[in-house]
């Protein structure tokens, strides 16, 4: 090949290469341009969905009981950290923790790490690790740009009354993952849920989640390569705050009810149990206060409770263990879904069955000898003998006396009589009366955990046995079952709400309302009423006036001269309370104390039911609670005002200590009370001061000590009480 040829080969080769480049550029920039322009546009446009403020929940007087608050928060985003090696991650968390310490947030690296680890198994959403941080810290964190640690502005749910009404209001959590969101979104497409969105998890927050939830704002925005928004292109859907929900609850009376239940439980713990009886654990209880004139729920206390804010800001391990694992089941709203044997509070309904079936007349007199022997029982076995509570002997009683003085034997005999004359009185006269007064079916209150309870019948027992012989070994129905049912024992289970509502029906001459907890829903912006929930009569029964009159008189007598007499001493006789105590037996436990009643006697305004678990006699433990509540309701005593908390709920953080017990930051540097790193001089000064104090203390200890100090102090009865007081619930002074 000549040199000339070589040059032309090289020249043509170069020309060819350029040709290829130009050809490819023509293809990209002229032929494929529209397509690639679209790709480029897709590259930088994003649909940004942001949650709108959640609606607020108000009590009957317009007080905010679930509100919202803007806050500068620090979040930990698992997905931003997962790419890092453990070493790098700990370095990042250490640095971030250090900055937070300097910014006044006492958080330790261990905690950030544990949040990271928990988040990796539970949620892909950023978890708030500190809220209400200073603006300076917030800006610093934004500038430092730690991976996975973000400074954000969030609208937080806030419960100004903390644990008050926590069961009713419920709490919010976040949608865990896409699977859950998909499941939810089948119902509503206007406000689709995304993982991490706020969602009501219990109570009103859950039942009215769709109402409270704001319409999310959807924007089409332009972003840069770092996913930062450059500009908004289009508003696809304007955001709108959620609607507000107005409850019938009076938050002050609710707080008073909760406090009353707690106080009476503490009292019951101090009270000695009867001989050979189990101790009064008195660890739980409930109280329902209904407006008897329209079925509105005024208060529904359930103890123990929880502070809903804890779900937002995290809790200590002890708190979590208590809430999730305790046998006390702090999450259960006992007022609505607690199932209890009503005990003697059921007697009025047995009485109604007895009178209306014709088994007894109102003025039939029964000789109460303290015990009742089943007539149908042939053997002399002890199981054929039923005794009065406390084996009292009441003598001659008629229906009114039997109710007010709570004669068990009266009702034992009535129960057996009804069963022995099935042909005359029907198979289930007592059960029918119970169902007439609302037992055995859901009250219809709009709280998700509302339960039906159980009214046992021979038929149901057979069916249960047929379906599940192991759980229900008994197939037949015997006279003893009717006897137990007559005094509200056996398989009968009712909720406190059902009980209060049934008593309201007694007072209301047969009118039973569907209990309501929500009054209205109003637009979150305009405040206009979007929907109102009017009182709803669920049953208006024509009750036997003779029977009802006797029952009412009996109930009124209970508080003046009967079993609840002591509790109601001094109560305004012009108002008067009609009620019934109950002492339900539960195997292996102390008796459950109950009281149900209404007031005023003539025309009830309020109906109350109280159940205190393992607290002894109803007249001793439950009736005083109802008395206190009636005093509040009729303004005999002023309701102690509970002030809403305006300060944010504190995040409970363990201070980080070094081996000598000095407070340190995540790097082990000594910090002072304000979180500032101490200089070596300050450390030396602090150590010297402490050494001097210790020396002084040691000298004091060697000196003769006062007897009261050297002797081990006897455990005061209060300590037993405080042992069952759950950590989250504060005892209001």
């Amino acid at each position, binding site marked *: 090949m000549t040199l000339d040829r070589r040059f032309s080969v090289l020249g043509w080769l*170069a020309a060819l290469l350029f040709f290829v480049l130009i050809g490819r*550029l023509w293809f990209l920039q002229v032929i494929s341009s529209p397509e690639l322009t679209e790709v480029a*546009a897709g590259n930088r446009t994003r649909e940004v969905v942001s949650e709108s403020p959640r609606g607020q929940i108000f009590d009957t007087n317009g007080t905010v009981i679930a509100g919202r608050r803007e806050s500068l928060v620090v979040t930990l985003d698992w997905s931003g950290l997962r790419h890092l090696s453990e070493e790098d991650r700990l370095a990042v968390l250490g640095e971030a923790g250090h900055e937070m310490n300097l910014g006044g947030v006492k958080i330790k690296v261990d905690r950030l790490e544990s949040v990271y680890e928990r988040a990796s198994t539970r949620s892909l959403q950023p978890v708030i690790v500190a809220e209400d941080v200073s603006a300076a810290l917030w800006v610093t964190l934004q500038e430092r740009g730690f991976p996975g640690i973000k400074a954000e502005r969030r609208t937080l749910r806030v419960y100004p009354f903390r644990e008050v009404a926590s069961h009713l209001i419920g709490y919010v959590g976040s949608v865990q993952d896409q699977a859950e969101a998909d499941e939810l979104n089948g119902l509503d497409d206007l406000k689709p849920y995304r993982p991490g969105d706020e969602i009501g998890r219990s109570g009103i927050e859950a039942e009215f989640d769709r109402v409270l939830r704001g319409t999310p704002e959807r924007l089409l925005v332009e972003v840069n390569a770092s996913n930062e928004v450059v500009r908004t292109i289009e508003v696809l859907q304007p955001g709108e705050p959620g609607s507000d929900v107005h409850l019938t609850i009076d938050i002050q009376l609710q707080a008073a009810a909760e406090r009353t239940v707690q106080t009476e439980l503490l009292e019951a713990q101090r009270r000695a149990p009867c001989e050979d009886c189990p101790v009064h654990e008195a660890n739980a209880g409930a109280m329902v206060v209904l407006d008897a004139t329209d079925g509105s729920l005024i208060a529904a206390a359930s103890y123990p409770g929880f502070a809903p804010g804890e779900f937002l800001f995290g809790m200590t391990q002890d708190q979590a263990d208590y809430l999730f694992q305790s046998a006390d089941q702090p999450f259960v709203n006992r007022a609505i879904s607690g199932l209890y044997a009503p005990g003697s509070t059921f007697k009025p309904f047995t009485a109604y069955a007895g009178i209306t079936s014709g088994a007894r007349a109102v003025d039939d007199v029964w000789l109460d000898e303290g015990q009742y022997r089943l007539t149908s029982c042939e053997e002399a076995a002890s199981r054929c003998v039923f005794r009065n509570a406390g084996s009292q002997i009441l003598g001659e009683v008629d229906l009114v006396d039997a109710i007010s003085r709570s004669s068990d034997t009266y009702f034992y005999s009535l129960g057996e009589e009804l069963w022995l004359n099935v042909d005359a009185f029907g198979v289930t006269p007592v059960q029918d009366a119970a169902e007439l007064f609302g037992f055995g079916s859901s009250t219809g209150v709009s709280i998700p955990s509302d339960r039906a309870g159980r009214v046992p019948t021979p038929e149901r027992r057979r069916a249960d046995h047929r379906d599940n012989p192991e759980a229900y070994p008994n197939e037949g129905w015997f006279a003893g079952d009717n006897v137990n049912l007559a005094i509200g024992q056996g398989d009968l289970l009712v909720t406190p709400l059902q009980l209060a509502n049934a008593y309201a029906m007694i007072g209301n001459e047969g009118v039973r309302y569907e209990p309501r907890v929500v009054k209205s829903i109003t637009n979150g912006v305009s405040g206009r009423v979007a929907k109102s929930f009017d009182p709803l009569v669920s049953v208006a029964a024509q009750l036997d006036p003779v029977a009802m009159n006797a029952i009412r008189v009996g109930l009124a007598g209970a508080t003046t001269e009967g079993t609840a007499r002591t509790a109601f001493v001094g109560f305004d006789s012009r108002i008067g309370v009609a009620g019934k105590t109950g002492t339900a037996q539960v195997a292996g436990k102390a008796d459950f104390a109950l009281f149900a009643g209404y007031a005023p006697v003539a025309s009830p305004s309020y109906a109350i039911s109280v159940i205190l678990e393992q607290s002894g006699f109803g007249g001793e433990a439950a009736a005083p609670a109802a008395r206190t509540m009636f005093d509040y309701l009729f303004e005999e005593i002023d309701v102690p005002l509970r002030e809403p908390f305006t300060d944010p709920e504190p995040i409970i953080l363990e201070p980080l200590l070094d081996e000598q017990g000095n407070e340190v930051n995540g790097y082990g540097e000594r910090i002072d009370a304000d979180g500032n790193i101490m200089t070596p001089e300050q450390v030396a000064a602090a150590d010297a001061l402490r050494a001097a104090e210790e020396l002084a203390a040691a000298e004091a200890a060697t000196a003769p000590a006062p007897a009261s100090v050297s002797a081990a102090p006897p455990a005061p009865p209060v300590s037993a009480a405080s042992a069952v007081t759950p950590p989250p619930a504060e005892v209001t002074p």
Partner: protein
Amino acid sequence: MKDALNRHPSVQFFRQLDLIMVGSALALLVIGLGAIASTTGASGGSTGFLLRQVVFFSVGAVVFTIVASTDYQRLRTLVPVGIGLTIVVLLAVLGPFGSTVNGTRGWIRFGPFSVQPAEFAKLAVIAGLAAALSRPLGKRFQRMGNPAKDPRRIMGALVLLGVIMVLVLAEGETGSVLVYCMVAMAIFFIAEAPPRLLGLLVVSGMLAFALAFSSGLLGDHVADRFTSFLDADADPRGAGYNQIQSVTAIGSGGLLGQGVFQGPQTQFGFLPEKQTDFIFAAVGEETGFLGVVVVLSLYGLLLKRTFLVARAASDRFGQLLVIGVFAMILVQVVQNVGMTIRVLPITGIPLPLVSYGGSSLLTTLIALGLVQSVKAHTPRSAPGDGSLVPPVLDLRQSGPVPELEPDAATIGPQ
């Protein structure tokens, strides 16, 4: 008076300047400055990159003038020194003086500036090979045969190439090694090395690359780039990201472009390495097909003038020097543009004269200075008319007959 003025060295320099070559290079430099201004946010007040490139350009212009006005035959005596210096610096980079950027350890820092010795090593390769494959100066070598056919000289050239390649490869600068290979091929080709040698070079080069690639010697990022070139969509957020973004940018530029400072891919940071390796994509997005055709035409012009100088060169050393520069610029332009439009895999090769970077710019300007020097010291067939008429080189005769007599006036120190 006029005559005296004409004889003044600076006037002589300008008269002999290849204005088309210098003009197209200047045009590319200005386009490059515009693109750097656009990609580094100079309109928003961040002018650091722009100012530094202007400094590099000013230094480069001075160096270009010095090299261009020096007789390349005199520079030839400096070749051994230059090669020695290059190897020492390359060793130093591998040692304690180097710093790592983008997975390659090819930088030496001097305060705010970093120098990339692999760039300057391109000149050492060109000058070294050109010197090895052409007759040395001096009368006693005039009867010597074509050194490109002398096994000892070929061996010498290959050893030099090998040493530099190994050192640069050890720094992780795969792209530069590619350029050395192509440049060497062009020089061997024009030096009329035996065809078997060329064939052997191609085969062994490919084998070496395959071996290095499969043994992982080149490092993961090279393997990633290569596999992502073959299937960019396999990992669009990872290794394939750069090319996808680059093709998207160029394609969305369309015929006339999105406008300077207006390309969203460029301005919003989707385009990676936008002021260096992928600057062509920024130009493509903001000035469209029209703009890239102008850029490529300027390169075409520049290369054509270089090509003509090579063909017209009156001695083998000059000819090989210029063809080396020609190949260097050609390979870099094709490889760089090729990777931005996804016809070639990604290598860290900058676009000569346009990409931001002092080492590359200085190297290219020195190389162009060499070309200008060769042109200025080539006797003209029609002196004074300024045009370059390629002399017909009849190199068909081989053997001891000297085909090219070095210009007597340019031999030896004057």
